[in-house]
């Protein structure tokens, strides 16, 4: 379980986040809904360990990950991150992008995981292509596969379906739900689209001007996907 407790982050005089608290249950889903500039991306970066909070604490599985003056390195948190623009590395092929996080595994095991993910995401024919040779929808699937390859306990997604049209978005959303369910990762999903947040089937929190202004009580707060 990820626990975010009274977290604050300022950039100069601007408070990006101000006393934010919530929990992401084990194997559960939380969607953070809010307009541009509400602090969604900052929140995700703080949880990923890419920035340090000015106040408050972030723990995962009972382990303190972030507090003022103490931040566990991003690669030691067991988290996967899917940035908004996919951010595939242009000098690596699709397969190399996904393999990046599997360094340290025996080669055969890494290969097996790669093949499994490529087959599951429909990317197998694109393994040797470079990011500029694939479409926007395919790039989102590669970013998802890359984040899930090391089998993280927690998956953080920052508006992963922005600027995709309706059919593509629905198909990708179904793929995300399926993959996250299969890997049993906890999902924290940031979006500005209420329908996307609702479709995920977990708890929905609304963020405005750096504060949590409302939670969706009807979405069974604190309940995971597998709780029924």
């Amino acid at each position, binding site marked *: 379980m990820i626990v975010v407790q009274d977290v604050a982050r300022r950039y100069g005089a601007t408070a990006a986040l101000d006393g934010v608290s919530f929990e992401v249950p084990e194997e559960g889903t939380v969607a953070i809904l809010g307009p541009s500039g509400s602090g969604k991306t900052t929140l995700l*970066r703080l949880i990923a*360990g890419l920035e340090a909070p000015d106040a408050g604490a972030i723990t995962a599985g009972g382990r303190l990950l972030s507090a003022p003056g103490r931040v566990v390195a991003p690669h030691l948190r067991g988290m996967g991150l899917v940035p908004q623009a996919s951010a595939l590395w242009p000098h690596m092929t699709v397969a190399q992008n996904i393999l990046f996080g599997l360094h340290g595994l025996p080669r055969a095991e890494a290969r097996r995981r790669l093949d499994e993910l490529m087959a599951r995401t429909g990317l197998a024919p694109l393994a040797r292509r470079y990011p500029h040779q694939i479409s926007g929808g*395919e790039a989102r699937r590669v970013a998802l596969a890359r984040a899930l390859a090391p089998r993280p306990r927690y998956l953080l997604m920052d508006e992963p379906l922005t600027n995709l049209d309706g059919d593509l978005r629905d198909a990708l959303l179904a793929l995300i739900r399926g993959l996250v369910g299969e890997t049993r990762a906890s999902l924290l999903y940031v979006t500005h689209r209420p329908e996307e947040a609702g479709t995920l089937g977990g708890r929905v929190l609304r963020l405005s001007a750096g504060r949590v202004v409302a939670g969706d009580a009807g979405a069974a707060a604190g309940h995971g996907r597998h709780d029924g």
Partner: protein
Amino acid sequence: MSWRVGWGAAARGVLAALALALVLSPLAALVAQAAAAVLGGAGGWASLAVPTGRRATLLAQSASLALAVALAGMALGVLAGVALWRLPPRQRALARWAVWVAAFVPPYVHALAWSAAADRLQRSLVSIGFPRLPMRGWGLAWWVQVMALAPLAVGLALAGLQSLDRDAIDAARPLRPDTAVLLRVALPMAAPLVAAGGALLFLLTLTDYAVPSLFQVGVYAMELLTEFSAHHEPARALLLALPLALLAALVVAVGQRMLPLLPQRPGAAGEAWGLPPRWPPWLVGLQTAAGALLMAQLAVPLVALVALAVAEPALADTLRSAGGEIAYSLGVAAAAALVALPVALALGPMLARGMAGRGGGWLWLLAAFPVAVPAPLVGVGLIALWNRPGLEALYDSSAMPVLAAVARFAPLAVAVVAAQWRRVDPAFLDVARVLQARPWQAGLQVALPLLAPGCLAGMGIVFVLSLGELGATLLVAPPGRSTLTLRIYNYLHYGASGDVAGLCLVVLALALLVGAGTMAVLAAWGRLLPDSSRLLPDSSRVLPDGSRVLPDGSRVLPDGSHVSPDRGGGTP
């Protein structure tokens, strides 16, 4: 409307042809003379073009020195670039500014300063019993070239790192330690600009003879000057230069292949690593050492020159007597910068557009090749072109050093303007063309202001490099006139004296002044005119072929046509 478009294209073509002629005519004259000599049955040309014996050794020495300088420069560039990249934005901007200003200091100023510093160090070591070492040779020439050219390598490496998307770093950090993120993600993505720095250092060292000759290192570029001084036959000089030119052309051709990979967006102002990266001590140690070397690169010339100059009793007289040369140098450099501007405006956008199309490679080679031509050859070419009956008035005038500087350095201004053009979103120009009745209005009111930073940077580069130009000016300076650089070079062979140090300080001050002024105006312009990439739609990116990818995966080609996202076999 079609006749107007036709006339516009024709005018652009004529202007581009004139600009190319200005840059390439010295070489063309040499080629014509050499062809006539070979076809006329002149013997011995093969022995000139294919170096053997001593000349082969000189060529190998030149190539090895250039390669060693390029490799050391790239290593220093990467390490110091990474060290500067992780600084907070304000300090990083200041450091970047200082690095580019330092790049304007001519190599011979470094030669004098490092000689003086090495001499002082040697005297201290000898006084405590160390043996005396010779103050000349390959090692010292290599060190001085690396120090003189290091800011170029560091500046380009930093520009490459700063152009990286923060999301690319963010996506990697949860997966691997920061060292792997740096080595596997950041550096490969910045590689085109790092390699461009290496290629530039290779070419500048390969074609330079001033620094090697000061340390008594024989190089091939010096052989060209010696050959022409002995025989006064331009065709022989060209044939002799062919092996060097081929080597340089090879590097330019490789550079041409990498150019489209250069980043389209300028350095990001924000923090690339929100949370400071955690690197192992060995990596931090290497970066610190590189940073210290970079600081020494800035401090040693200044301290050594001031120490030498203040010890010179007749310094004031020397500076007074050099007043004419200082004014003449400034005049030549200013004229070269002014002439380079229309050349860059005529060829830069064409080069940027052409790179994506057929024949773009040849256009790039034509524009960039003069940078790779040894300086003495440009001087010899100008003599071959203009030293003719009826042209004495021009040949004996100050136009010759200006033409030499333009032929050597205007291609750099062309490349800078081309790079600026590639950063301009074509949509801005499309909108201007639709709204303006006449094409020239769109050019004047929209394209020119967007290109202004590139124009200014290009002119600044041409000005400062012209101020330090030696190889070609030595051959074409009009009778009775001398530039400050010529005077310093002549003095330098007599050793590091206080007089020369004083004159070098003048050059240093002028270079720093112009460099700082150019950078300050560019910074002010940057604040006034936001980077166009920030005005592009979210998440759009520009591909090597010049097409733009929209967030839905569709592409807008350079000609404005639209390609659907499914071209790459796209399924959801």
